[in-house]
């Protein structure tokens, strides 16, 4: 169904706005990628996108927004492809028919971080006891409170620990991961953070990792190709090519090899087992 996606992204896609390169205006292939801010902030896309753009002679416009916003952009057909880390929300999205393809791409993990003084005395403990202790002793815990992938995971973790605290010490920041980390640092509070953001920012913070291991801390990233029925302008073919690229060996190697400050940020999901980094 639908017209040729390449033809649909006619030159009107690219009004001659200032600062555009010649490559833009000659190429008819452009896709819009919505991702969560934390993914963008990891810097991974700055490595991946140029490779894809070069091999497909196209441009990928990255729009980094909150998880909820990204899903809504996909729903409205304003973007062609999503990369998010909210498994349950992604499944619901697929079920509603907004996407036509859903691929696991990579994963890393969440971790609980907290003040170096560790007032709750939870360093190195297991996840659930740690959360229980924080709750029972009434230590400050910051929640993103923004329905992001991280926030949803945090709520799920509290469920495992018997419900989230309801006192004054459980605080919602309503902001992205970066600002929330800074707030936790300033307020000497515990919080749940994704590994990417943590590794990027930890040097500027006095926070230390508290709980880093555990099956419930897995943070899977997946890509969704938006249903082309959403809008005539959706470049579904190129979006599919992009997802193909993400799970290709080339990209998977790049993902697996991506390091910040010497630390590995993501584990590729589709890498052939025999290839070691």
């Amino acid at each position: 169904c639908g017209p040729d996606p390449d033809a649909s992204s006619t030159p009107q896609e690219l009004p001659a706005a200032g600062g555009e390169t010649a490559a833009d205006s000659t190429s008819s292939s452009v896709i819009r990628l919505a991702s969560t801010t934390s993914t963008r902030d990891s810097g991974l896309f700055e490595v991946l996108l140029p490779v894809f753009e070069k091999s497909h002679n196209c441009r990928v416009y990255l729009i980094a927004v909150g998880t909820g916003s990204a899903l809504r952009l996909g729903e409205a057909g304003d973007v062609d492809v999503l990369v998010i880390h909210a498994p349950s929300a992604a499944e619901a999205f697929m079920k509603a028919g907004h996407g036509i393809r859903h691929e696991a791409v990579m994963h890393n993990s969440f971790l609980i971080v907290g003040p170096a003084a560790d007032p709750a005395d939870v360093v190195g403990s297991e996840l659930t006891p740690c959360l229980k202790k924080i709750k029972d002793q009434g230590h400050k815990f910051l929640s993103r409170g923004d329905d992001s992938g991280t926030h949803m995971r945090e709520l799920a973790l509290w469920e495992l620990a018997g419900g989230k605290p309801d006192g004054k010490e459980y605080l919602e920041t309503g902001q992205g991961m970066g600002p929330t980390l800074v707030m936790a640092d300033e307020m000497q509070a515990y919080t749940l953070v994704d590994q990417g953001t943590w590794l990027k920012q930890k040097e500027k913070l006095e926070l230390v990792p508290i709980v880093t291991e555990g099956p419930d801390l897995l943070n899977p990233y997946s890509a969704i190709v938006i249903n082309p029925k959403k809008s005539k302008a959706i470049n579904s073919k190129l979006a599919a090519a992009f997802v193909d690229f993400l799970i290709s060996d080339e990209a998977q190697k790049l993902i697996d090899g991506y390091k910040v400050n010497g630390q590995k940020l993501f584990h590729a999901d589709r890498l052939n087992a025999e290839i070691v980094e």
Partner: protein
Amino acid sequence: MIRDGISEALQLLLQRDSSVIDAAIRSLWVSALAVSLASLIGIELGLLLSRKTFPGRRSMIVLSRVGMSVPTVLIGLLCFGMLSRRGPFGSLELLYTTWAIVIGEFFLALPIVTTLSHGAFQRLDPRVVETARTLGAGPVQRTITCLRETRLALGLAVLTAFSRCFTELGIAMMVGGNMPGRTRTLTTATALETSRGEFARGVAMSLILLLIALLLALAIAMFDRSEREKSS
């Protein structure tokens, strides 16, 4: 989306959604306080810059005009740096309180009030001060007379600063922290709903903000009209 927003806004208002009302009241008093303080100083400064000649006067005028272009993110960052635990005023423990927002918005409003009120005083007929002076008015009465004669322009200066603070996001986010019930304002709430993808709710919050602005503007207009009726 707009229709959804309006109906959502009505619902929030009718249900007296306590979190929304809480944020609205906070938005209002925080910006009102910040702008009042900034007006106290800014109008005085504008008057000074328009009346006295002293070294550095021209640079101060340029500075206050440039000051209008300080992005809220920068004010937020600087206030953060000052109020942070490790900053010079960290011991005051003001970070992530509404007072921090008041401080930040004060610096946002100050250059606006100063620049616009300086402009107003600059246009003021020089005979106003001369007449006040020759009739024996002291500095205070002279100032009051100048304010009375530039009422409209000063009112607009204050209104402009208030609008700026009332709709400001960067400072409230960065030094307030957008914590519900504590430092969440209407704009940070709007931003949150938007990032959640709850666009209609975001529109609803903004509409409530606008409603407050409308009530204020109507109050000003009514005051204006009664003043005008008196004087015609």
